[in-house]
């Protein structure tokens, strides 16, 4: 069964909107806007890999490209783990309640996975040319 790109884009935008909905609900239901930082962290998280990872420079003989790739991967993992850890810290210090923690974490992971899957689809469609 062949899935058309339009279906993929529609489903991904649905997931992205669901993620934003979860995070904004987790803020607005308790009128406590601390979990909104999660959106910023998860939107920043795919940036270093897309900026620094170039496949034409990904040559194992040259050191500098692998170093910048390592730095980008380090920053990416740092941001993703921060996005998971920030709601937990907010819950532990009782700045937000437990349902808001769960909703903001799952919403942030939805946003991040939809961005990652979108780039994967885009690369696939580019390889077919």
């Amino acid at each position, binding site marked *: 069964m062949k899935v058309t790109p339009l279906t993929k884009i529609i489903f991904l935008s649905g997931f992205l909107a669901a993620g934003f909905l979860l995070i904004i609900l987790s803020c607005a239901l308790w009128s406590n806007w601390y979990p909104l930082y999660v959106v910023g962290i998860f939107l920043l998280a795919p940036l270093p890999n897309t900026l620094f990872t170039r496949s034409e420079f990904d040559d*194992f*003989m040259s*050191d500098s490209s*692998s170093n910048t*790739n*390592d730095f980008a*991967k*380090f*920053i*990416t*993992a*740092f*941001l*993703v*783990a*921060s996005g998971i*850890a*920030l709601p*937990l*810290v907010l819950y*532990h*210090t*009782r*700045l937000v309640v437990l349902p808001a923690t769960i909703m903001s974490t799952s919403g942030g992971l939805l946003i991040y996975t939809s961005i990652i899957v979108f780039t994967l689809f885009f690369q696939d469609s580019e390889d077919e040319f």
Partner: protein
Amino acid sequence: MEQDRLFRFQAFKLPNSLALRSCGVYLSGALYALGVWAFLDAVIYSKTVNASDVHVTFVDWIPIICSTLGMLIVNSIEKNRLLNDALGNGGFGGSSTTTWAARVILFLGFSLLAGGVAGSIVVLILKFLMKHYSFPTLGMGVSNVVANGAIMLSCIVLWVAQNIEDEYSYSLAL
């Protein structure tokens, strides 16, 4: 390589693959974030829901600043400087001074890392354990130790991951 093996099973072999290397780098970044957030958790906890009269002061910040500086120093050293010397041609050439500089700076970085971990344990003992605090207050000192341990573990994982790649590129280059 195959016939001068002593034991029947190979004891420990670093796998040479690029995927494992990037997994190690990702794991290192996640561990560093874990350490930083464990410490920030203690700081925010001390500000918000702390019922006791013990607070996180600048003394608690010193170990994690030492650990972060040490990690920065250790991982910004060019490892080929050390590798050149390990291959045996760094004796009389002009590169011996840079090798020595690399060694001294690397020693400084590792002692900063170890000093961070030791300092966090000292803070835990002197500030919390000696005064017999019970657990919600003691948690601030424990999370300081956890934070510094996670940062040191992240530095070790990053070092090992980058050395995996060095072996890989050598085996392809030679």
